[in-house]
């Protein structure tokens, strides 16, 4: 199995304040890494370091064997990295249709209209006028329709209705079968445990739990969340 994305000794932050320290993991094709922790521990910072909008102060990131420490974000995308941010996850001023067409080649998004029918109804609607949950779904489908095989998702289920969360779960499992690597940041432990093969629990920017799904009970995860 090929390793698609890996990072080691990763540290970074915003200006003077460093937020994450010494994070490392490796994700093979068709595997998923689940990242969890309370609010403010640095999960989103990790996502942005991997995606490239934040420059790491220490450590390495390799994408398909290539060191991408100094690669700009758009180029990481062209190398196959897709990203769904936690906030500002759609282009508010563009329509749903434009949001979908901007990342993907035409036609790929339509495959998802059966699963998420509300999107098909709102193609001409400006993305910013939709509710938070609907915007999350739009961003999720946009990500799924892209031609990328390493996808990083930052709390995709937040504010989304339970039926749609299980649909997201199905899409992610299907992606794994196709050979994509997934890094899933979530507070929703049920979704996390359904998708992830490995788990990384964080607190105050540091890794406090790192092992496989099988070796980590739900109770252990709850402990990390309420330290």
């Amino acid at each position, binding site marked *: 199995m090929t390793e698609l994305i890996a990072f080691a000794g990763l540290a970074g932050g915003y200006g003077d304040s460093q937020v994450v320290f010494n994070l490392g993991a490796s994700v093979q094709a068709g595997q998923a890494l689940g990242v969890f922790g309370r609010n403010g521990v640095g999960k989103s910072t990790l996502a942005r370091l991997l995606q490239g909008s934040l420059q790491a102060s220490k450590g390495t990131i390799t994408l398909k064997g290539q060191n991408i420490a100094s690669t700009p974000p758009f180029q990481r*995308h062209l190398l196959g990295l897709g990203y769904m941010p936690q906030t500002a*996850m759609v282009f*508010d001023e*563009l329509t749903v249709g434009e949001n979908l*067409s*901007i990342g993907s080649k035409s036609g790929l998004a339509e495959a998802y209209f059966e699963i998420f029918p509300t999107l098909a109804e709102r193609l001409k609607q400006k993305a910013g006028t939709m509710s938070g949950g609907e915007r999350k779904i739009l961003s999720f489908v946009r990500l799924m329709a892209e031609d990328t095989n390493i996808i990083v998702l930052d709390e995709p289920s937040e504010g989304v209705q339970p039926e749609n969360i299980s649909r997201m779960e199905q899409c992610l499992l299907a992606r794994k079968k196709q050979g994509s690597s997934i890094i899933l940041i979530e507070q929703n432990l049920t979704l996390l445990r359904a998708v992830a093969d490995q788990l990384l629990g964080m607190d105050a920017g540091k890794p406090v739990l790192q092992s496989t799904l099988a070796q980590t009970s739900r109770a252990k995860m709850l402990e990390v969340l309420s330290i």
Partner: protein
Amino acid sequence: MTPVFLLNLMWQLSLLAVVTLGLAIIFGQLRIMNMAHGEFVMIGAYAPIITSTLGLPNWMQLPVCIASVALVALILERAIIRHLYGRLFDSLLATWGISILLREMVELAFGRGFQSVPLPISGTVSWIGIDYPAYRSVIIGVIILLFIGLTIWYKRSLVATRIKAMVNNPELAQAVGINTVSLSRRCFVFGCISAGLAGLIIAPTAQISPLMGLDYLIRSFFVVVVGGLGSLEGLAIGVGLIAGSQTLLGALFNQTYGYIFVLVLSILFLWLRPNGIYRNS
């Protein structure tokens, strides 16, 4: 409202629209407060002079204009501008210095005195029952077509969508694979080129000197401020208000009062509606 007055108004509206277009892109979209905008108009206006100095035939004026403006814009973008996107105040200062530099360089090359170039199309044409200068008539037509084409392009093309995306959410734009650095550069150069083309159009009707750009700078900025940043409709409204009031008052009183009215109008807009008439953010 005599037909001549209406046609003069159309002329002023068209001119102001094409002069402001470049700034609407650079200031409205890229958030660069380009104080050298007038100088790009000025360089474009010097294109006929450059062309004849180089001994080139008259039809080369258009390529010379585009080439000279694009060259200057590209050098400035790579050296200075690309660090300043989104930083309004720093870009104001840096481009203000650039404007002085450009003015001085042109003065060094061509002198400070006024120059003029002949109309490429002379004579008058007869329409709406009166005789109106041919050059102006042709240009009004060309500009109207240009803006119709631009509006269609803006609503349909993928590049336009990408620009809107980049302006709306730069981080997400990069995340979906848009090369924002290169796109910003191309937008900046395009904005400067359109300013230069405006200068080329104006050249036969104006007194060309290194200092001519300041007037266009001020009026363009006020159009963008009044019309609101970031939309073609806002641009249209801004052009309409500014050129309209200046022409009207200029005809009724004198030019200076027209100018003063535009200034007072813009101050009022900044005071009461800092986001312009057309709310877009």
